[in-house]
Every structure is written in C-alpha cells, then in structure tokens.
C-alpha cells in the first residue's frame, strides 16, 4: 500500500514545474432532477509554475464553477485536482485553502466586515497554521501591514483599526487580495474580482493584482467577463463553454490576440455566437 502511494506521488510529480493539473473533473448539479445541469464536463487543464491564466466564456460556461471545484466548496463527481503533485480533491475547503489564495466577485465575501483591517490581515497571515492561544495580532505585524498597505496607495495604511465593513468595494477587494497572498499561495484564484467595481477602481485593483502576481511569481487563474482584460493580462488564456475548455492560447500567440479573433474563435468552436452584452460592451 505504501509503495503504491509512493508510485502515485511519483506519477503526479513527474512533470516537474507543473503547478495545477485538473484531470477530467466533472460536476453535475441537481443530478436526477429536471433541473439537472452538467456544470463541468470532463474538464482538464494544466498550469505551469508562474502561469497567469485568464478565463473567459459565456454565462453558465463553468468558469466560476471551476474555481469553486478547485477551492473545494463542494466535492467533484469525478476526476482529480492536483496541486504541486498532491491530489487535493478529497480535502475539505478549509484545508485546501492552505494552498490557495482566493478573491471573490462580491467584495463582501472575502473579509469579515465587523473586524478591523488588521484583524482580517492577521487571520489571513495565519492561514495554514494551527490557531493557538497566542494573541491574535502581534505588535510586529502592524508595521509590516502598514508598509504593505502603503504600497497600495489607497490611504489604508493609517486606518488599520477601521472595521472593514466601512470600506468601499474597491478597498475591500484590495484587502482581500493582500489577504490571499500574505501566505504565498500555490495558486491564486481571482473570480471576476473586479466585476462589481466601477471602471477606475477595477483598473486599480487589476493593476495591483498584476503587480502582486509578478512580484511573488505566483501561479494564478483569473476569471473575467472583460475580453480586453483577458487578452491584456497573463501569459495564457482559456475559453470555456458548457463546462469544457474549448480554446487555449498562450505565450507569443496570446500577445498578438485581438478581441475580434476571440469572438470568431468562440462561434467557430462552440457553434454559437458569444452573445453576451456584458462581454461585448465592456472595455
């Protein structure tokens, strides 16, 4: 048994430098009822260390579902989720979060509103560690967080003891982003994290995301409705439809990509128009 386990590990880690491997994951909601929906259909994806992958697709294509599957919000029906050679598909959500940094679409999701900025950060800084009877915020942390927040240039560095609930959506997303990366995650999951923000704030948060990802050399997945952003950011782009990856492009090719190409690709690959006002209208 032990040998078998070792063999498995070797198999997983044989492709060194591979950060994420989604191995044919399938998820069906409301199975066996009239509302049955195959949200992920034998989905596979490989990301190398340092890849920054953007994800686009129509409504209900399975983009956010894929991130939820990786995060472990619920277990997948079939397939494996392998991070750094380790199969995490059986781990509960709170254990998987040891490897993952997450920023959600809804700015209220990522922070505890009635707790101070510094308390939220301190909780995130202890992700993956046993929560002890030591004081929740060390005095040495204060200086560190102040410096980190000062870099954001949002005026948050002097408001460490402000309750997060009093902040704007953009400020909360910036803090959630910092919380997601205080403990360097093996994989950063950004789930349309700028969709609920005004264009100016969205641009700012995106810029911060870019900066943090490149500074810490993170592997990241960013779901977006904005094709422009999907093309401009990251080194890899996937297009999803009906729970599958229908198109994948990376490196030099991706850099030359245009919005029109994507629209054409989509109609060719999926046999339907990418009829989504939100995607077409967003700049």
């Amino acid at each position, binding site marked *: 048994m032990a040998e078998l386990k070792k063999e498995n590990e070797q198999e997983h880690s044989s492709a060194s430098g591979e950060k994420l491997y989604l191995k044919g994951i399938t998820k069906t909601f409301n199975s066996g009822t009239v509302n049955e929906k195959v949200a992920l259909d034998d989905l596979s994806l490989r990301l190398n260390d340092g890849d920054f992958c953007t994800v686009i697709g129509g409504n209900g294509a399975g983009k956010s579902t894929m991130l939820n599957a990786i*995060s472990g919000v619920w277990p997948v029906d079939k397939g494996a989720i392998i991070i750094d050679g380790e199969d995490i598909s059986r781990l*509960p*959500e*709170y*254990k998987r*979060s*040891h490897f*993952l940094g*997450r920023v*959600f679409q809804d700015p*209220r*999701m*990522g*922070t*505890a*509103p*009635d*707790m101070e900025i510094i*308390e*939220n950060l*301190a*909780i*995130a800084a*202890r*992700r*993956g*560690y046993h*929560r*002890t*009877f*030591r*004081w*929740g*915020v060390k005095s040495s942390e204060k200086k560190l967080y102040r410096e980190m927040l000062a870099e954001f240039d949002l005026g948050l560095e002097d408001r460490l003891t402000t309750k997060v609930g009093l902040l704007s959506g953009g400020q909360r997303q910036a803090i959630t982003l910092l*919380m997601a990366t205080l403990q360097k995650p093996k994989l950063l999951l950004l789930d349309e994290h700028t969709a609920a923000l005004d264009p100016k704030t969205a641009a700012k948060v995106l810029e911060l995301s870019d900066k943090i990802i490149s500074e810490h050399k993170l592997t990241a997945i960013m779901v977006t409705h904005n094709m422009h952003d999907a093309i401009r950011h990251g080194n890899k782009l996937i297009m999803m439809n009906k729970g599958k990856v229908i198109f994948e492009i990376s490196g030099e090719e991706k850099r030359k990509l245009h919005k029109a190409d994507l629209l054409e690709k989509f109609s060719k690959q999926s046999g339907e128009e990418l009829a989504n006002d939100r995607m077409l209208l967003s700049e």
Partner: protein
Amino acid sequence: MLDYFTSLDPMAFVNALPGNICQGIIWGVMALGVYITFKLLNFADLTVDGSFATGGAVTAMMLISGQPIWLAMIAAFVAGLAAGLVTGLLHTLLGIPDILAGILTQIALYSINLNIMGKANQTISVDNYVVALSLRNVWLSIVVALAFVAVIIALLYWYFGTEQGSAIRATGNNPAMAPAQGININKYKVIALALSNGLVALSGSLLSQYQGFADVNMGRGAIVIGLAAVIIGQVIGEAIFRKRFNFVMRLSFVAFGGILYYIVVGLVLWLKLPADDMKLFTAIIVAVFLAMPYLSNKRKNSFKKVAAQNKKLSTAEGAQDG
C-alpha cells in the same frame, strides 16, 4: 386610584433593590454566554433554557452528595460544556438548523435534568451546605457575583483576542470568508457553543446557590432574559460611548444589562403588576430593545425625511426667486 398609589411604599422598592441587583449580576453571567453565540457566532442558541437548569441541578446534587462547592461549580460548568457540544454536533455533523438544534438539546435536557435531580426540585439550604453566595447575605453575594463577572469578562476578553478567538469571530462574522482563510468553521462553532453553555450552566449554578434550591423549570425563558440583557446593554452602551464602545465595555455592558433588567423586574413587581404577566413584560421589553437599532436607523435614513428636506429647500428657493 389614589388608594393604589398610596399603597406603594418607596422603601419596599429600595429594600428589594440589592436582591434584584444580585440576581441581575448572576443572570449577567448567563447573558455573557448568550453574547458569545448570539453576537459573536451569529447563532441563535436555545440550548440555554436547558443548560441553565442543568447547572443548577448538577450543583445541587454535587452538594447533596457531599462534594465541596468549588467542585460542584466546576462540574456544573463542564455539564454546560457538554450540552453546548451536543447542540454543536447536531448542527455541524447532522446539518440541523441552529434554532432547531438548540431546541432539541433543550428538550432533551429537561429529561436529563429530572434524572440528575431525581425529582423536579432539590433544596440546598445555606444552613446545611457551604455555598459561594446566598440571599441570606445579599451584600456579600453581590461582591462574590461581581468577582465572578469580572474574572469571566477578563478571560473572555483574553480568549477572543487570541488566534483561536479571532477565528471564532471570523466564523460568526463571515462564514464564507473563514474557510477560505483555512478556518474550520464547524470546529469553532462547536467550541463557541460549548463555551457559551458552560457559562450559562455556571450562572444556573450561582442562582441555585443564591435562591437555595435547584428547579427543573428554573431555566424556562432564560434565553429571553439573556437576550434582554445583551440587547439592553448594547443599545445603552452604544448610545453613551458611540465609537469608543470597545470589546471590554461591550462585555461589561452585557452584565450591566442583566442588572438593569432585574431592576426593571423589581419595579414591575413593586408596582404590583401581576407576577403572572412577568414573561409577557419581558417579551415586550426585549421586542422594544431589539427594534430600537432598526427603527432609529430607519428614522435616520427615511424617504419621508428626504422628501421633507427637499420640500423645504424648494420653498426656500421659491421664496428667493420671488
């Protein structure tokens, strides 16, 4: 009517005051337990009606079987922990909604409490047993009860400032965020529920000593009294201190809410309002205080107010134009 007012003796109210205050402090311990679940964990836990009586029952039987009072009180606390644990496991392992999980444990505890005592009521007279406090000596009891409250507030302040306590607060505040930060919300829900009911049982233990008996019905309606204390304390504290109302003050005002509640109870009894209607009064008081933050917020942000302001502005402009 005049007869009624002349029949009221102010001294009777004053004389009853120390006893009311002492009961209020004892219930303040219970309210601190309710504060943990209701405010910090955001969990409406109805276990307390049962675990309060469990605290009294365990204390009485430990004393009767010859155990020292300190051991009896520790046993009461541990019994409360166990009661909270059961509610927590019903909720987290079996997926039973919070209110229902609490009610189930509460109902089960009624039988358990009867079994612990062997009958519905057990007397523990101060003449026969050494107890920590008793209505025979109200002033000393007030000091002892205050000492308990002070130590408990200090311990809670410390605990909820630790990494573990912060995790409980995050769990209650945002159950979506907590697991994303590696917090096992089920574990911390169970810990908080156990701790809360431990305090509630300790309060039941203190009350049984104070009144000299434990009764299977002594916890009936406890949740409403606990909520009353929590809410009265928070509303008043926020009104006085506003932004400076910090965590230690919040805890202190929970206990203060308990005292205030029992002063009001004393007032109601003094006014010779029928004691049978006590629960009705309690429910009305809690409803009023629960509604207060909502109504005051509504008044601040009302459409009518904006409309009235706009009207005033436009008439002022009109007057200028004319």
